[in-house]
C-alpha cells in the first residue's frame, strides 16, 4: 500500500465510539428496554427464517413452558433459586477479581458430601439432625474445594481461572468413583437415597416440595447483599478487587482476604450442594449441577455483582431455558431452535451494556473526500 506523505491530516474513521458520561437510571432503563425489544424482534425474524413457524406461536409456547401450570411455575422458581444461589456464591470471589470458574465442581463436591452423609449415617440419626450434619459436611467439602486454588493464588499467584476449572473435572471423577463404590451392580446409577424413610430430605412446607429451597436462597440473597455492601469484610473485598496496591498501602492483608473470601465463596457453593441433595435430587450423578456453575458466572457478571439484580437475571435466564424446552416439544421443532433463541437473547442483553456505556457516532462525510 502506498502512503501519501503529503497528506497532513489522518483520515478519521466513519464510525467512532465514545464513552458516555453518567446516565440517569431512567435513560439507562430505556436503553435496556429498547435493546431487549430489538432482541425479541431479532428472535422473531430468526424463527421465521429457520422454521417458517409464526413467531407469535413460538413466544406463546415459551410463556406456556414457564407459567402454563402451577407445577411449571414452581419448577421455574426452583430452577431460579438454584441458579441464583450459585450466582450469589461466586459473587464475593468475583468482586475481588478472583475468577472462580469452579462453582460447578464446588457445588458437586458439596452434593457428594451430603449424599455420603445420607448413605453412611442416614439411618443412625433423626432426619433433622442428619440434615444439619449434611449442611456442615457440604460446606466443609466445598470450602476445601475452593480453598485449594485460593491458597495457591494467595501464596504463589497461580492462575485461578484454570485451576478452578480443572478442579471441576476432578470433582466429576470423584463422584463417579463414589457411585462405583456405592452401587455394587455396576450400573453406575445411584438411585434415590432413602426413598422410604426420607431421612435427610427437606420437609415439604405447605405441601410445596421446593418452598424451603426458595426461602433459604431468599435469605442467602439478603445475607450476601448485606455482607458485600455493609460489612467491613465486604469493603475489604472491594478494595482488594479494585486495587491490590491500595489495599497494601492501607494495611489490608491481601493474602488473608483472598483466602477468606474464596472460602466463603466455596462455603456458599456447599450450601447450594446441600439444597440440591436434600431439597431436590436426593441423589447424585457426575452431571447433577448441570452447567449451573457456569451459567452462574454469566448471571453474576450480567448483574454487575449486585445480588438484587441477580434475582431478575436468574428468572430471565431460567424462563428462556424452560421456554426453549417447551418450543421443542410443542412445535416439534429441533430443540436447537430454542437454544438458538436463548443464545440470541442472552447475547443481546449482555450487549445492552455496551450501549449503556458507549455511544456510537456516525461521522459526516468530510468535504473534498480523501481517498485511501
Amino acid at each position, binding site marked *: 500500500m502506498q*502512503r501519501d506523505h503529503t497528506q497532513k491530516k489522518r483520515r478519521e474513521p466513519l464510525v467512532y465510539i465514545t464513552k458516555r458520561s453518567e446516565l440517569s437510571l431512567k435513560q439507562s432503563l430505556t436503553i435496556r428496554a429498547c435493546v431487549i425489544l430489538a432482541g425479541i424482534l431479532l428472535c422473531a425474524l430468526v424463527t421465521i427464517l429457520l422454521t417458517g413457524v409464526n413467531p407469535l406461536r413460538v413466544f406463546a409456547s415459551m410463556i406456556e413452558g414457564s407459567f402454563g401450570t402451577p407445577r411449571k411455575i414452581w419448577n421455574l422458581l426452583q430452577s431460579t433459586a438454584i441458579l441464583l444461589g450459585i450466582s450469589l456464591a461466586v459473587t464475593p470471589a468475583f468482586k475481588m477479581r478472583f475468577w472462580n470458574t469452579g462453582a460447578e465442581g464446588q457445588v458437586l463436591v458439596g452434593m457428594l458430601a451430603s449424599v455420603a452423609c445420607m448413605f453412611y449415617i442416614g439411618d443412625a440419626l433423626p432426619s433433622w439432625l442428619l440434615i444439619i450434619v449434611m449442611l456442615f459436611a457440604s460446606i466443609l467439602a466445598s470450602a476445601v474445594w475452593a480453598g485449594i486454588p485460593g491458597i495457591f493464588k494467595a501464596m504463589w499467584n497461580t492462575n485461578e481461572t484454570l485451576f478452578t476449572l480443572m478442579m471441576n473435572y476432578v470433582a466429576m471423577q470423584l463422584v463417579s468413583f463414589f457411585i462405583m463404590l456405592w452401587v455394587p451392580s455396576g450400573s453406575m446409577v445411584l438411585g434415590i437415597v432413602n426413598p422410604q424413610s426420607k431421612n435427610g430430605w427437606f420437609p415439604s412446607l405447605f405441601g410445596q416440595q421446593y418452598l424451603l429451597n426458595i426461602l433459604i436462597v431468599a435469605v442467602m440473597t439478603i445475607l450476601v447483599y448485606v455482607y458485600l455492601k455493609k*460489612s467491613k469484610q*465486604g*469493603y475489604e473485598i*472491594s*478494595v482488594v478487587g479494585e*486495587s491490590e496496591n491500595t489495599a497494601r*498501602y492501607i494495611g489490608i*492483608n491481601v493474602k488473608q482476604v483472598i483466602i477468606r473470601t474464596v472460602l466463603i465463596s466455596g462455603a456458599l457453593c456447599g450450601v447450594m450442594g446441600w439444597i440440591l441433595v436434600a431439597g431436590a435430587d436426593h441423589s447424585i450423578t457426575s452431571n447433577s449441577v448441570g452447567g449451573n456453575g457456569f451459567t452462574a458466572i454469566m448471571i453474576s457478571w450480567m448483574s454487575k455483582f449486585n445480588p438484587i439484580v441477580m434475582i431478575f437475571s436468574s428468572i430471565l435466564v431460567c424462563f428462556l431455558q424452560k421456554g426453549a424446552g417447551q418450543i421443542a416439544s410443542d412445535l416439534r421443532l429441533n430443540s436447537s431452535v430454542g437454544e438458538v433463541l436463548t443464545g440470541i437473547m442472552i447475547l443481546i442483553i449482555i450487549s445492552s451494556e455496551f450501549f449503556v456505556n458507549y455511544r456510537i457516532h456516525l461521522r459526516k462525510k468530510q468535504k473534498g473526500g480523501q481517498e485511501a
Partner: protein
Amino acid sequence: MSKTAIELRGITKRFGSVVANHNVNLKVYKGEILSLLGENGSGKTTLMNMISGIYHPDEGEIFIDGKLAHIHSPHDAFNYKIGMIHQHFKLVDLFSAAENIVLGLEEKGKFNVRHVSERVAEISAKYGFDIDPNKKIYEMSVSEKQTVEIIKVLYRGADILILDEPTAVLTPQETKKLFDVLRRMRDDGKAIIIITHKLHEVLELSDKVVVLRHGEYVGTVNTAEANEHILTEMMVGKKVELNITRKAPVNPQDRLVVEHINCRNREGIKVLDDVSFVARSGEILGIAGIAGSGQRELLEAIAGLQKLEEGSILYYNPKTGEEENLRNKTPLQIRELGVRLSFVPEDRLGMGLVGNMGMVDNMMLRSYRKGNSIFLERSEPEKLAKQIIEELEVVTPDAETPVRRLSGGNVQKVLLGREIASSPTLLMAAYPVRGLDINSSYLIYDLLNEQKEKGVAVIFVGEDLDVLLDLCDRILVIGNGRITGVVDARTATKNEIGYLMTKTVYKEDANDAT
C-alpha cells in the same frame, strides 16, 4: 564534514494547554552521537516520540537526509530508517531473541530461523554485541533485553537510532559495554540520539549536547567545549521566585531517623544504597532527585511497603517519648504502634485512593477498622468527605461520585485531605503537585506549611527545584539510590542541587554486579 541525518526546525507540541515542546531546533549528522539533556518533564521523550511517529508536531518541520519528512506513525518512522529503543522494553517474554527481532516485519516468504540467526550474528559481530539468538527473553538479563531491542532496530536497517535513557537500568560495566557498541555504530556512520540526565555520561560519550528546559530549547553545545557546571546551569536555569511563605522551624526535634538502609528491586539492582537521614518535627524536608533514583522505595520503606536488607528506621513518638523501629513492619503494625504516619503516594488513584469508589468510601480506607462492629460505619466518613469538599474546595458532583472522574487537582485534595485528617506526626508526600495547576499547587503548599507549623515532620518529594528551594527547610538530594548531599534550602542554589542530582557516586562495591 559529514551529511545531516536528521534535522528538526521549530518543533512545537501542545497537549491541551500544556506546551510540551516549544520551538525546538536540533540537528544530527551521520556518524555523530547527540545527547538530549534535561530534567524530568522537560520534554525530551515527547520530542523523540515525534521523531519516531508516536506523536505528530503541531508546528515545525522534520528533515531527513535534507528532505522534508512527514512521520505519521511508527511505520512511517521505520520507512525513514528511524529506530527508537524505549526505556521500557517491548518484547514478548516467551519468544526467543530471533523471534522478537523479526516480529512484525512484513517480509515475504516463510520465517526462517537459521537465516534470521545468521543476520543477527552478522550484526552482532559488526558492532560487538554478545547475544544468543535462540535464548528466550524471560531468561535474559535487563542488559541482554536491551541488546535485543537495539538489534531489532538495526535488523530493520535503522540509520538513526534514538535511545531513551538507556543506562538507567544498567550496571556500570554494562553501561561501558553499551557505550563501546554505540561508538562502533557511530564510526559506521549511524546517527545516534540518546536521552539522558547523567552528565558524566553525556561528557564521556556524545559529540554534542542539546539542552531542553520546561519544553524550551535552551541551546546546543559541543561536548569538547562543555563541562558539568555549564551543562547544569543550562539544565536548571535561573532561579524563579515563587513567593511561598516560609517560617523558621519552631523547636525541631528528631522525629524519624533513618540509618544505613539498603534495598534491592526485583531484578536484584540496588535501589537504595546505604541511605541515612533525619526528619525533624516542624520542618519540611525536601527530597530532590532524578525520577526513579529511589525516592519511591524510600517512602514505601518508611510506610512499611518495602522490605529492606539492612539498616533501621527509628521513629520517636512525641507523646510517649518512646522509640520504635519501623523496619520491615507492615503498615498495620506501624499503625498499631501508635505511629501517626500519613503518606500521599505518587500513584494517587492506583495506591492512595480507589478510583472507582466515591469520596466517602475513600475516606473509609483509613478509618473503616475502627470499632468492634462487623458492619461499616458511614456517618463519620461522610462528615469528613463533606468537610474536605468544603474546606479544600473540591469540585465534585457529590461525595459518591467515583474519584477517578475528578480532575487531578481535586483527586489530590481528596487524598491529602484524608491523610491530614488523621492528624499525623509524620507526613510524607510524593510529587504532591505533579500535574496540578498553579492555584491547586499553592493550596497544597499552604496545607503542607500548615502541617509544619503544627509540628508535623513533613517529607516532600518534589521535582521542581524552585519549589523545593522555596518551600523546604532542608533538601536531601538522592542520586542512583544514594544520598549525594543534604543542603540548607535557604542558602543553596539551583546549580548546586542540579549538580548533586546528576552526580553519580560509585563506591567500592560498584563491581559487585559482575
